[in-house]
């Protein structure tokens, strides 16, 4: 498919499109529409009893359709977390028509619907296809949706925009026949920024854009990161790969993994285990050896194709502004000032900002948005952010290109929709998986713990005093809630029918990635908030000064004093 695409770029007829997003060409439309038709037929045959569940399961999973506790669940891909207003409105429409009026934004920058009916799923997918979306490769042992920095193309911190590369990887990996049946699922993340907002070192492959001594663009290649029951921080197997060689090198890594990965034991099947088994040096040698062969074949994207993709990610034409409208409004409005300081990041164009919309109202469900909220965000993006929205792996939404003088108006609209909680990056900006409230794999509920923490720590002044603190909650060892990377990680476990919650400290998903350390036995649900309060109190009592963050303090103090405080033992 990719070869065909390269050979025929001259016939591509770009439709009217947004300045800063990839637009499907006729190949994209054709393959997505064909997949919808194929799945419609598969569902029809399943309902008619022509195929068994055993036969049907891989078919539905390849289209993102799971069966969970209460109903089917559809996971929709949001490529590298980027949405247009039109697409967000379609997601709202789907929530309303095919689901129960809401969706759940996930730690993979995707959205999940919790209640679709099997018989209606083909129509749902058809609606998605009409706005250039799908659910392909959101499940199964294949290369999953590529993720990236939610501030990509807007932040002043990056050496290059990672989205064109993410799109290139999306095209390369979609229906890649050699990698359709990998030993296990495979996740790739890309960033171009010095500050890691994409948990790069926790992915099967993490790509960090950088320049070499000659100023050439390329990638640091990180391999073998992952959470789950064996948390591992990825290792750099190549300090610098010229960007033109990206696909052949990725292909080589995948080939080595495909050949050496464990297919007998699924708990040993991720690339992190393969790399550990073979050894980093030997794994790297195998990849480099394979790459010497692979780079001789036409795997890498021709410059013309890269240019075609890159041309779709031109930044919107923003003028430099130097008004003080937002600052003036903030002088008379403490709530707005708090939100401005918390939720608005610097944009690469002076006078503009990147707005993070918290989907973590205190007491709410992390990552959930109602159809009405989605439509409000879509409207705001259309009016104030070049019709573009991002989804972060921390389960928030982003308006990436906002003029600062529009911030008061945006804040008012968000506030009216319960979307202006100024807790981004603070204790209550909690990642939580769906947990046992929805998930068939979970051992314990996650969301109620996040809700109780949100209610308990609902004082913004107190939250700001505590400072940056990332709590991440998983309802089972599969770690969809990223508890291993939490400054405070919470893992729900099942002990003879009782939900218990273990606390771990010191994890990080940022550029200083680290694995959280388990403190000890789990706490019952009604004690976990108190336990977190104990941890916070100890931090506040022992931080070197107000500048020392929670994570820095844990790293300086070690976990012993926290264990002592919680269990009475060092």
């Amino acid at each position, binding site marked *: 498919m990719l070869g065909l695409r390269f050979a025929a770029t001259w016939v591509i007829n770009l439709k009217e499109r947004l300045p800063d997003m990839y637009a499907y060409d006729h190949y994209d439309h054709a393959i997505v529409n064909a997949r919808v038709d194929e799945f419609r037929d598969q569902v029809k045959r*399943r*309902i*008619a*009893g022509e195929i*068994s*569940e055993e036969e049907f399961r891989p078919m539905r999973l390849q289209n993102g359709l799971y*069966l*969970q*506790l*209460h*109903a*089917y669940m559809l996971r929709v891909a949001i490529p590298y977390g980027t949405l247009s207003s039109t697409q967000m409105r379609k997601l709202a429409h789907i929530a309303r028509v095919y689901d*129960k009026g809401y969706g759940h934004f996930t730690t993979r920058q995707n959205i999940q619907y919790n*209640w679709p*009916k*099997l*018989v209606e799923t083909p129509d749902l997918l058809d609606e998605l296809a009409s706005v250039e979306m799908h659910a392909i490769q959101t499940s199964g042992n294949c290369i999953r949706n590529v993720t990236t920095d939610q501030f990509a193309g807007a932040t002043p911190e990056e050496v290059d925009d990672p989205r064109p590369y993410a799109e290139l990887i999306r095209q390369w990996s979609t229906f890649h026949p050699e990698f359709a049946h990998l030993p296990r699922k495979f996740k790739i993340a890309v960033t171009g920024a010095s500050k890691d907002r994409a948990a790069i070192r926790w992915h099967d492959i993490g790509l960090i854009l950088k320049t070499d001594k000659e100023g050439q663009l390329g990638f640091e290649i990180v391999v073998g990161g992952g959470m789950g029951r064996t948390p591992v921080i990825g290792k750099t197997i190549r300090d610098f790969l010229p960007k033109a060689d990206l696909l052949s090198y990725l292909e080589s890594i995948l080939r080595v993994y495909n050949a050496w990965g464990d297919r007998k034991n699924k708990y040993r099947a991720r690339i992190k285990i393969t790399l550990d088994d073979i050894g980093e040096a030997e794994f790297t040698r195998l990849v480099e050896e394979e790459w010497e062969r692979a780079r001789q074949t036409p795997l890498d994207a021709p410059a013309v194709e890269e240019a075609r993709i890159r041309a779709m990610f031109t930044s919107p034409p923003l003028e430099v502004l130097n008004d003080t409208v937002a600052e003036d409004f903030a002088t008379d409005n403490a709530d707005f000032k708090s939100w401005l300081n918390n939720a608005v990041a610097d944009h690469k164009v002076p006078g503009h900002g990147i707005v993070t919309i918290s989907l973590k109202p205190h007491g709410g*469900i992390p990552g959930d948005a109602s159809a009405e909220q989605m439509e409000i965000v879509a409207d705001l993006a259309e009016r104030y952010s070049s019709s573009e929205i991002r989804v972060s792996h921390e389960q928030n939404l982003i308006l990436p290109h906002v003029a600062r003088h529009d911030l008061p108006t945006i804040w008012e609209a968000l506030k009216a929709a319960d979307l202006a909680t100024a807790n981004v990056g603070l204790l209550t900006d909690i990642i939580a998986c769906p947990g*046992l*409230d*929805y998930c068939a794999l*979970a051992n*314990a*509920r996650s*969301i*109620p713990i996040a*809700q109780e923490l949100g209610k308990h720590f609902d004082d913004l002044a107190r939250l700001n005093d505590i400072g940056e603190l990332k709590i991440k909650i998983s309802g089972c060892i599969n770690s969809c809630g990223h508890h291993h990377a939490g400054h405070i990680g919470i893992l729900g476990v*099942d002990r003879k*029918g009782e*939900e218990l919650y273990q606390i771990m400290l010191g994890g990080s998903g940022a550029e200083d990635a680290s694995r959280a350390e388990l403190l000890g036995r789990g706490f019952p649900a009604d004690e976990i908030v108190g336990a977190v309060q104990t941890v916070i109190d100890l931090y506040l009592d022992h931080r070197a000064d107000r500048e020392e963050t929670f994570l820095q303090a844990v790293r300086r103090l070690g976990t012993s004093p926290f264990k002592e405080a919680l269990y009475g033992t060092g």
Partner: protein
Amino acid sequence: MAKKLKGPQIILSNRLDDGRVQFLTKDTSWSFQAHDAWLLVSEDEREAAMAAAQAFVQSNQIVDAEFAEAELTEAGPRPTHPKYIIQNAGPTVRRDLGYQSEGKAA
């Protein structure tokens, strides 16, 4: 599927066309309410009930069937493990959703 569990059990499944949770009743039909379920207290009952449930799997009316530990209450059988309690009632974080919203949960 036939995991040995201690004590009385019930059988539940997801309906094929929409995934809705339902419970096997003593007349080998299905109810959305756990308290209508057939409470299985002997190995013979377990085997007979699962055989009946599997017939629905074979006829493509349900996806699969599994046992869940249960207890007898005044209203009828009730699952005892959190997973099955939640499956019976709906998500604890959205009381407006699931079968609890219809006032049918046991």
